[in-house]
């Protein structure tokens, strides 16, 4: 499963692998949506994302915009993610959460 969710107390750690594209976003959404509760912290590791398209960007944006949860954080953005954010002018939006992973693949 390209999306890996680890729940621990009030924190959810999400690990995405492979594509974050129109082919995977609905699946990713469905996997995560049930866990969205007030007071929950979500951390999404993007280090293994190989490809991002507009659908994927929308997913990231929508997730970031969640107000039901306590906090949403993205980390270890892979090159594919960074490139997509830059092209779409969204780097600034995700600025506080961009941490360039030393193991960035692709």
């Amino acid at each position, binding site marked *: 499963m390209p999306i890996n969710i680890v729940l621990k107390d009030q924190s959810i750690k999400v690990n995405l692998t492979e594509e974050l594209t*129109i082919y995977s*976003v*609905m699946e990713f*959404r469905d996997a995560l*949506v049930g866990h*969205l509760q007030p007071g929950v912290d979500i951390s999404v590791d993007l280090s293994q994302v190989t490809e991002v*398209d*507009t*659908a994927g*960007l*929308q*997913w990231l*944006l*929508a*997730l970031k*915009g*969640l107000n039901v949860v306590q906090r949403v954080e993205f980390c270890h953005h892979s090159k594919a993610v960074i490139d*997509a954010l830059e*092209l*779409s*002018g*969204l780097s600034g*939006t995700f600025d506080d959460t961009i941490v360039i992973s030393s193991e960035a693949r692709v």
Partner: protein
Amino acid sequence: MTASDVQKLFMTEAEELLTEMEDALLSLEADSENIELINQLFRAMHTIKGAAGIFNYSAIVDFTHPIETSIDKVRKNELKIDCALIALLLKCKDHTWALVNAAVEDDEAALNTLSIQSQLILTELGRHENIESCFPQTIAAEPITPERIEGHYLDTGHWLISLDFRADTLRNGLDPLSFIRYLHQLGQVLEVICLSHKLPSFEACDFESCFLRYRIIFAGNCTKEQIESVFEFAQDDCDIQILPSQKISESFQALIEQLNPSENQRLGEILLSIGAITEKELAKSLHLQSDNADDSTTKKLGEVLIANQLVDKPVVEQALKKQTQAREQAQTIRVDSNRLGQLINLVGELVTASAAMKVMVDRYHFLDANDLVGCVEHLVQEIRENALQLRMVQIGETFSRFRRVVRDVSNELGKQIELTIQGGESELDKIVVEKINDPLTHLVRNALDHGIEQPQERINAGKSAVGHLMLNAFHDSGHIVIEVTDDGAGLNPERIRKKAELLGLVDVNQVLSHAEILRLAFEPGLSTKEKASNLSGRGVGMDVVKRNIEALRGSVELDSELGKGTKITITLPLTLAIIDGFMVGAANENYVIPLNMVEECVELNQGEWHEQQKNYISLRGELMPFIRLKSFFNIPNANQYNHRESLVVVRFGRTKAGIVVDKLFGEQQTVIKPLGKMFQHLKGLSGATILGTGDIALILDVQGLITEVSISAKKYHHVALIDE
């Protein structure tokens, strides 16, 4: 910068090759299979391209290369040569020559303008070959902004590209990211703004639909068309707008200004030619226009373009200006007014010569020539009318200038005055228009200053607070009449009379009619305004006005009612140069009466008229003053000539008078020659003319005569009455 010898050589060679190319193309029209001709075409483009490459004339290289390729295809039978292609290649040949010239002269501005045409021609060529345009690869695009040379990207001006993607975009296999990435290849993407406000919440979002919109600031050495082509596949899924920045907009305006106004260019064509809109945008707009054609509010193309943000307003306005320029240029031609004056003088001479010829023909009874003479006369008449017409201008422009005067003066004086203009389209001779300006101004200022009262005063008098001033012009029997009317305080006849008595113009006991008293206002020294204002009232005004108008062979009348208002009527001849005259004889002298004032002629033996007392005549019961020309002018030995007398009834304005003459000659085109300075103030004469015989005829100043006659007639009558 002069071309060096080698460059000159290039130009000569290019000229030869292009001439060969043209010859070949023209021959191919009849002989399209001729390989030798096709090779000639290829050779021309190939050689020019090569040579241009050596000189680094990239514009020429970039243009000729695809053409060479196309011709090569023809050579290889991959492309058929038909009429359309030949026509297109002829265009290419012309354009290449233009490029060669511009390049050798190192004319940056010309190259910039030409580059757009290069694009357009090559697009046509590409279309002809069924190849969709692919500019980025095959042509190094020439920028449209003059700042290219500076080499500063940011100075080239930028575009705002607005992309509103529709919901199904992603599902259709398209992705905004690929287009944005492509833009990076085309030029500089300065900023990307992603609008995500339409994105639903995470839980409910259908991520397969597209909710994102983009606004991109883009700078690049490319045309609007090239930017548009980036999104060619997204036409159905995205609302695209490409908006020029101020700089680019200004450069569009500059380009439009540089265009040669060519007749019948439509707004869309003008804008397309400079790259302000693309073909697709134009097609879409025209479509929108015709879609709404049923609405009562059919929008003009310019409005549609602006409303849809395809072109901004200043650019449209500039293009419309250029259109008007073209139309005006097509319809008008500038003529030096001196030349026109010369022409009219010559026409005058022609009239005289033609008359002389007629006299000659009559004298020697060249009967055969009668028709010819009649024909020449008729033609001369036409030429005369046309020539005079050339100098006619509408009085409206003069009238309109007074709007400003009225506004400024009413502000200055604290009055409220409304100006109405009527009959502005009435035409009169340009010179008359110029000369009437000063007198008119004085009269208008008079009305504003003395005529119309202060608002409070007006209210007290039961009038509206706002005063009215009207300028009216119309034609009346060969004259133009200008009326200046105000609803102000009017002239005070009492005051005028008192002043006139003071000045000794009028005897205390003299009985004067209302009209006569008013006429006194034209006498020098008669300003009844107690305090001379800044504008008028120094008492030098009205008489100068009258003199100026009379110098134009016009006249001025005054009508006023105390408390109600004043009307000043100026009558001017339509032209100063040539008039239709009616020639009469008194004793052995010839006189000309302006034909438009002649009412009728009655011969003595008809018994319809007879003298009543000395200066009056009764014609069919109607009484009018008259003069006997030979008496009036004291022609010596007049009684030697006892002709049967005739009466010419002249009318001027409302006044009629009779002129008794000895002979009636008939209509005569009269070229007015002014009397010498010495004779300017002769009463009753307004000029002279040279007849075909070489004799001189004096032109009667009918207005002056009538006035003289009326006054003296009344005087006499008055005296006669008193005597009785």
